[in-house]
């Protein structure tokens, strides 16, 4: 009997190939959508981490409390030693020192007078060291609209909008004015060698990027930095691990309680509105995935329902031949389970392949995000997580099965003669 039903299932495309295809497509879309939404949310968070906050950040307690003002006088000291200690304690993170600063950018005229001037927010990162990955991390090469990256002392990058506003060209010398770590006047000349456009209003409004060594000289910050940022290997923020680091940080680094200059470790979630963003992203991701899974489940449930209803005539015949209603019903459910499982397997593989391609290649939306005011990634990437390996089975198996369970109820609700009539029509 099983062989007989199996033959029917395999030979009838409407009962096997078509439903398997429908389930596989639905499952593939569900898996891909989950990976895509997760990737999108995660990329937004990661971009903020790379550009500004790190997965964890070490700075002085006072700097953390006044971070919005970027107070150079509250910077970390003995940065080299501290970085070595951090690397020794947490070798699974990449550590980079940075200086966030603010000041005035002055454009001199022919006679040395001020031709143009504007407030600037700056970031100094390690461009020059051969082992540094900061340029790559900030994706500066891709953000360059003209010129090149700093290669020698005294060179800097400006955001393209800002350089246009100031009316400066590549090769022009500009003067940065700010305050040193010790509260004195800081000023230094920089040659503009490139313009960047991150496609993000926050960064492109008025940003200067320069090498750490130059800014250290300009701001009198030898062996100092406003922060040391740490990034987990694999590039994904791990809040549980960050929390563990935070809890043991005071003991590990013998931090003196109440010392305003003592280093503190901030998690990504602790900084600005990132906690809210991470929580909202997680909730949004879940919500979008839930809505999509629900929609997909309804489609597959309906497919299962129609698949069952289509066969009422056949059921009528089988009942007339003497098969019991229970046997007909159970065989329908077994078929549906097999179709759901096979379709889910195929769909999961297809969905993962597509998600993997999207994870590796990404989708460049740079052109359509020119005016974005949030720090959002221009390349959208999917991100495969362990959940993607089983999430498709929810609509694939359960919804299909529920559909056929419901349609099969017709076998019991209708009397045999009615099914028989449907067979004749």
């Amino acid at each position, binding site marked *: 009997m099983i062989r*007989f039903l199996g*033959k*029917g299932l395999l030979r009838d495309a409407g009962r096997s190939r078509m439903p398997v295809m429908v389930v596989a497509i639905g499952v593939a879309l569900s898996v891909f959508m989950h990976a895509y939404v997760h990737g999108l949310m995660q990329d937004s968070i990661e971009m903020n981490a790379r550009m500004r906050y790190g997965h964890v950040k070490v700075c002085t307690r006072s700097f953390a409390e006044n971070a919005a003002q970027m107070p150079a006088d509250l910077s970390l000291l003995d940065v080299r030693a501290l970085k070595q200690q951090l690397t020794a304690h947490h070798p699974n993170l990449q550590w980079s020192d940075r200086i966030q600063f603010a000041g005035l950018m002055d454009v001199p005229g022919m006679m040395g007078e001020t031709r143009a001037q504007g407030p600037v927010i700056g970031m100094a990162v390690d461009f020059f060291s051969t082992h540094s990955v900061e340029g790559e991390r900030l994706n500066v090469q891709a953000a360059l609209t003209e010129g090149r990256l700093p290669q020698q002392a005294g060179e800097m990058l400006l955001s393209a909008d800002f350089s246009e506003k100031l009316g400066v060209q590549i090769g022009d010398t500009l003067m940065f004015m700010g305050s040193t770590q010790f509260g004195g006047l800081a000023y230094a000349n920089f040659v503009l060698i490139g313009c960047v456009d991150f496609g993000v209003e926050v960064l492109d409004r008025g940003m200067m990027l320069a090498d750490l060594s130059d800014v250290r000289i300009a701001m009198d910050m030898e062996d100092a930095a406003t922060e040391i940022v740490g990034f987990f290997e694999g590039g994904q923020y791990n809040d549980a691990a960050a929390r563990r680091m935070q809890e043991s940080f005071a003991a590990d680094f013998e931090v003196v309680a109440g010392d305003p200059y003592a280093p503190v470790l901030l998690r990504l979630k602790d900084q600005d509105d990132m906690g809210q963003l991470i929580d909202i992203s997680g909730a949004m991701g879940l919500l979008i995935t839930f809505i999509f899974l629900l929609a997909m489940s309804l489609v597959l449930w309906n497919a299962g329902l129609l698949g069952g209803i289509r066969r009422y005539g056949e059921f009528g015949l089988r*009942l007339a*031949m003497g*098969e*019991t209603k229970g046997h007909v019903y159970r065989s329908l459910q077994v078929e549906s389970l097999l179709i759901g499982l096979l379709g889910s397997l195929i769909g999961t593989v297809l969905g993962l392949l597509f998600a993997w391609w999207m994870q590796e290649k990404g989708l460049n939306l740079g052109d359509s995000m020119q005016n974005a005011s949030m720090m959002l990634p221009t390349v959208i990437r999917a991100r495969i997580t362990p959940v993607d390996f089983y999430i498709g089975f929810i609509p694939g198996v359960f919804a299909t099965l529920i559909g056929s369970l419901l349609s099969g109820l017709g076998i019991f609700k209708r*009397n045999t003669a009615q099914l*028989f009539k449907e067979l004749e029509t």
Partner: protein
Amino acid sequence: MEQSYLIDLKQVVKRFPMGKGSFTALKGLDLQFEAGEFAGLIGPSGSGKTTLLNIIGTLDLPSEGGGTVLGHPIEHLKASEAALLRKERIGFIFQSYNLLQVHTVFENVEFPLLLLGMPSEERRKKVMEALDWVGLADRHRSRPSQLSGGECQRVAIARAMVKQPSLVLADEPTANLDAANSHHVLKTMQQLNEAFQTTFLFATHDEKVISYLKRKIYLMDGQLVKDERV
């Protein structure tokens, strides 16, 4: 002593719900059939012949009245008992053949034997025998779509007869066949009736079928009009 009938119906009433009221398809029928009969329920559409065939075939229950089919009281028959009765002792032939299109001729005829749990070798022998009765043994590997209408109906006859049931119910078996095929199919059924003493009960208004019947039961508006033996 009361005579034992193959089918013994007493005051069978069948009502179907219609809107707020109901429609009475059978109005207190009394009918008896003996083993080996070749009988037909004759009447126009709506006369109640298919409804009666469904009740005799245990596919439906009477609203009132009752009786026995193959010794089983139909008014109290449970669904599982009815299924067992159909599986073991009743064969069906339909107007539109109702063969399983994805299965071969052999597999279609084999299906009732699979339900009976018959061993494979015995099944094979019986299927080939049944196909031999209807002259289609050489087409056992064909699919229904490769056969003519007449051949399909002969396969349906083989499927109904393969388990050698006591009763075969045929609802308008020639409605989709031309005259030549109709006669071929009816002759086949007549031969099987004579050979195995299987009771054949038709629902029909086709003159060709009527001409073969040995007993003609005329129905009109759910009532027996005439019961004629040839």
